[in-house]
């Protein structure tokens, strides 16, 4: 079975094609804001102008007739962007006369991670621009055991980067700066049970910059504090749930320091740490294609009239009937 998946919940616009054993291709055409953050209308304009070309690029590499399922990211995400994705998916499904499967974006991250790493029943730390969550399976659903009380980590990094005059996406630039940071500044370390928050850290960091602290030191302090918080909540979830596997997914997961810290935490409690390869870490079409394939194999399909976008789609709302 071959599945095509379209992702475009925010800045990323990506189509992936997978079969049961591997990723066949990923084609990307991301929206990059000229300045400032992501504007939903501009992002959706970018998506609508470029999705046609992206589809043609994909079909120059795979035969459209070979596609068995058309999957798309139904939510959560920015409404205007989601609508471009859903419209394209409906059109392809009708044109190719193949079933449509609307999938949850967060669950796609998690399932592609399990698929490519071999993690069985992990606690999943999902960190991206808009989302930062601790997710684990409980019976017929995945549940969110902990999450940010204000903004996602990626968003927090972007805010800090922008304040430093750096362009989107800020995460990789902060990571680079942090490597030459030496001095540690104490920042608000906010962990409440398995929940956490980042906005206090952003404000404190901005203040440090105003007071003349070095960018490198701020970046270093920010990473060390935020990642330690995530390692702590991940460990707490693993302890509560008696799970000895941790899976890291989401765009911020590509950060090498975060991976090192989580790996160390797992080592110290004799647990296993998993992270998928970089191209499957951030938002991508292959993860959507894979979850669509998995769901279709287990009897799911989405009727056109049920394919409306779900900007607030929660991972808990998906009934999971697969292993």
């Amino acid at each position, binding site marked *: 079975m071959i599945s095509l998946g379209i992702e475009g919940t925010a800045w990323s616009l990506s189509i992936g094609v997978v079969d049961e054993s591997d990723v066949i291709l990923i084609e990307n055409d991301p929206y990059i804001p000229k300045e400032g953050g992501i504007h939903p209308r501009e992002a959706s304009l970018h998506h609508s102008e470029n999705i046609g070309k992206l589809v043609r690029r994909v079909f120059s590499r795979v035969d459209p007739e070979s596609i068995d399922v058309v999957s798309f990211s139904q939510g959560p995400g920015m409404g205007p962007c989601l609508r471009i994705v859903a419209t394209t998916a409906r059109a392809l499904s009708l044109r190719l006369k193949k079933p449509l499967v609307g999938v949850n974006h967060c669950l796609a991250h998690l399932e592609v991670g399990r698929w490519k790493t071999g993690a069985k029943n992990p606690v999943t730390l999902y960190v991206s621009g808009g989302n930062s969550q601790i997710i684990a399976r409980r019976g017929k659903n995945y549940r969110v055991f902990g999450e940010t009380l204000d903004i996602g980590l990626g968003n927090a990094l972007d805010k800090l980067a922008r304040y430093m005059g750096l362009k989107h996406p800020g995460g990789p630039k902060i990571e680079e700066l942090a490597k030459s940071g030496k001095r540690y500044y104490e920042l608000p370390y906010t962990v409440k049970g398995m929940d956490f928050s980042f906005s206090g850290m952003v404000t404190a960091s901005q203040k440090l910059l105003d007071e003349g602290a070095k960018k490198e030191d701020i970046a270093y302090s920010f990473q*060390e504090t935020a990642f330690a918080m995530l390692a702590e909540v991940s460990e707490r979830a693993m302890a509560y749930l008696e799970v000895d596997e941790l899976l890291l997914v989401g765009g911020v997961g590509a950060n090498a320091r975060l991976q090192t810290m989580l790996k160390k935490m797992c080592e110290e409690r004799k647990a296993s740490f998993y992270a998928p390869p970089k191209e499957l870490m951030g938002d991508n079409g292959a993860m959507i294609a894979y979850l669509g394939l998995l769901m279709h194999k287990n009897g799911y399909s989405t009727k056109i009239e049920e394919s409306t976008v779900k900007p607030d789609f929660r991972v808990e709302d998906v009934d999971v009937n697969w292993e």
Partner: protein
Amino acid sequence: MSMRILCIEHLKRLREEPIKIYLGGEAEVRIYSDFVAKKRRKKGYRIDELDAFLRKTRTKMEARIISSARRAGIPTPIVLDVDEETILMERINGEPLKNIMNRKLSRMVGEYTARLHTAGIIHGDITPMNLIYCDGKIYFVDFGLAFYDTRIEARGVDVHIYFESLKAYFDNWEDLRDAFVEGYLSGNFDKAEEVLDRAEEIEKRGRYVERRLAED
């Protein structure tokens, strides 16, 4: 300030084989027949400055808060001894609420939580794992993330965390949440309604982040 050390008797006892070792989110808990030792060991994943700061401040704060919660009438274990990174406390040999949760117990958690909040204490991690039922009382056992705060926001988050943990563990979480609310409102805590409203509001935050990202 001189470093606090455990008394010799306790140090000896710590060399005995514990009944069970539980590796929690930030501390190692050794359970002995009549006491529990909670030790915040060094975490290799974080830098030394942050590690030392967290271990020291949390241990100190936890010992202080256990005692003040007790004075406020909330069942907690008695603190026997403390050093820079270890707290020795009485062992509460009961059943974690996780295993026996029902409406009546959740209501009682609500009553006690309101009492904690009245005393200016935020527990920081109220979950069915951190509550032990013993001799008709519910003991609050883990004050590892507790702090003093009388703001509505902090209290709201405290309640929110409990609700989230109910959701994660129990299918009848709505029922258990309602029971908690009943209990929380039953005392004479004058801010109870305001806190519960805030908890509801907090639930809605953090979920529309994509939208907020767009508004930047």
